[in-house]
């Protein structure tokens, strides 16, 4: 198992890490792995909440807002609030978040002894025991321009460079050498091939045949990939 993935695995499952930022190229399985680890840790997939941030997303979408119900407005917890009360949180694309959302996460990722968010209802939202948040991104903390104060709150900042070993195994089982080819493509970041493209090829080849599916899924890299797969078969 890749050292970075092993570290993440052990850190989260042992409960010793409550706040982690994982970064690396696209398609590595950061989000999926984070979801799986939190679900295992909390022993229920239903208690894991995932949000994918964008520049336009506002705090209310994450924390909560009032919704009309009958003749009144009722507070509705957002995914962050739900997770803080009774679950785990996976935050994707943290570097893309707006300034206001990043400020929210200063409170979300604060130490559990002091973390507290005042809701418009008057409640104080505090993280439950065992609350864990894993943030992911494609950029290093420096490249992402994360606030040093926010960065400081993460117990673990980890770079992953290659796809998750389970992704590789799954692809290798589906087609011998495919997973290894995808793994090796990440050694050359300018010409990497995402596991998503590989999964797309596996689906498309049923309809179009291997060669045409490769052109559709891998584009201009198709020839090289198919040559290597044939040679290493």
């Amino acid at each position, binding site marked *: 198992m890749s050292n970075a993935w092993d570290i993440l695995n052990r850190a989260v499952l042992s409960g010793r890490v409550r706040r982690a930022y994982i970064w690396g190229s696209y398609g590595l399985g950061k989000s999926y792995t984070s979801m799986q680890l939190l679900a295992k840790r909390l022993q229920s997939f239903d208690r894991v909440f995932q949000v994918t941030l964008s520049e336009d997303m506002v705090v209310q979408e994450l924390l909560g807002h009032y919704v009309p119900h009958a003749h009144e407005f009722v507070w509705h917890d957002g995914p962050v609030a739900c997770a803080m009360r009774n679950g785990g949180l996976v935050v994707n694309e943290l570097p893309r978040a707006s300034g206001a959302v990043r400020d929210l996460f200063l409170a979300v990722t604060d130490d559990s002894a002091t973390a507290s968010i005042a809701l418009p209802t008057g409640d104080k939202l505090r993280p439950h025991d065992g609350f864990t948040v894993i943030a992911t991104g494609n950029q290093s903390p420096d490249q992402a321009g994360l606030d040093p104060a926010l960065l400081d709150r993460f117990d673990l900042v980890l770079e992953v460079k290659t796809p998750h070993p389970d992704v590789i195994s799954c692809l290798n089982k589906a087609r011998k050498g495919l997973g290894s080819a995808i793994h*090796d493509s990440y050694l*050359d970041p300018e*010409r990497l091939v995402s596991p998503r493209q590989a999964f797309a090829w596996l689906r498309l080849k049923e309809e179009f045949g291997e060669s045409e599916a490769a052109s559709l899924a891998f*584009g201009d890299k198709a020839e090289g990939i198919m040559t*290597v797969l044939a*040679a290493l078969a």
Partner: protein
Amino acid sequence: MSRERQRVIPVPAIAHGKGPFRIRESSNGGGFCDFRDKIFSAPLRKDSITARAVRTHEYGHLITDRIGLLAHKKLMKECAKAGIDQGWANAAADAVVNTFMLTKDLGEIRELPLCLPDDEALAYVPKYTLAQTLLRTDGTKVRMEVKWKLRDLDLLTYEEVNLIDQAAISLSELSCFEKPIRVPFVLTLLSYLQTVFGPFDQPITLAGAGDGFEKVPSSLVDQGLVNQLSSLIGSQTFSGVWGTMEEVHPPLSKPCQKALQALRHKPGFVGPFRFPHRALLPSGDGMAFAHKRRAQGGTVLIDMSGSMAITESQISELLERIPAVRVAGYASAEGDMTRGRLVLLANRGFRVNNVWQTCCSLLGNGNIVDGPALQWLRKQIRPLVWLSDGTVTGVDDFCSAQLTSEAISITRTGGIKRVATLNDLLGFIGRHGRLPTIQDLHV
């Protein structure tokens, strides 16, 4: 379609399992991989069959190195240590790659292009370069074209082309098994090829009159030995050891009058004072001095094993026509296949009393010591002629590629001319009045 869309994106890191690589688009249609500096160069056009073939070939180098089929770096390093031209190593690697990729049904390899210079310029290409080119085309469509061209232009002999074919087959057979090819085996094979084709230690001088170039001299390698080497490579019979050789000098008691007469000092007016009775005039003619007659000489070494038999009259005829000749015969020692003997049979007009009896008592039926005998021959007075059917053996009368390769090297560097039969030799002497040299292609 934009220029970018017309080009593939190569993925050498996926092929090699290491990266990142620098990609260079080749402008001349060729390609190469540099494992150390991680460079991948190939034409990138999508719409070209030959460009695709070149890319597939370069991927092949990366993949064969990755799976350990042929350790490229180790092969280059060992070749450099052994004094084998890097061109041979590259040609062998290319042949292995082509075969391997073909076994994986990557038939585009067959479309690999080859740019040969025009026919006139080909004559100035060193022989080893031509041979390397032929080796590296193994598995491609152009191979037959190259083969026929080199034969038609008489740049490689039939035996030499056959040798390259056998070497390619040996490499191909190993490439199919996907087990690591042992570098020492490849080194041995390449050393045989370099023994036949070069490059040799003596540099080839290209400066000359006219347009500044002179033709590279044609091969001085014995083609019969090349033929034997081919079949031994084909049967994978490589190692062998020469027997130990003993020199025997029986008494040369029988004179050949005609030879002695030819060698006798001729009276004259210059030279050492030798005929005092002619010195005083007018009774004498004043020709009291002597000078040596110029007489044809050289050395003939005869393989006396098996079927080669030499008669008294043949020896006498040889002495009469080449008065200053030295003749020796060699074979295994009587009843012993680990040792051999070289027997001096004639020298400067004198020979053994009974050739047949001498040979029967001292010599057996095997070769055993062709190498040591040839080493003796190259130290003798030139021209040097080796009378043999071209089969060389070592201990236990065993043929091997190693021994044949050594014989080729000795004959080439020693300037030794092999003649198949004594009748052929006597026929040549009859026509030219001298022993043949290595430059005489037809005897």
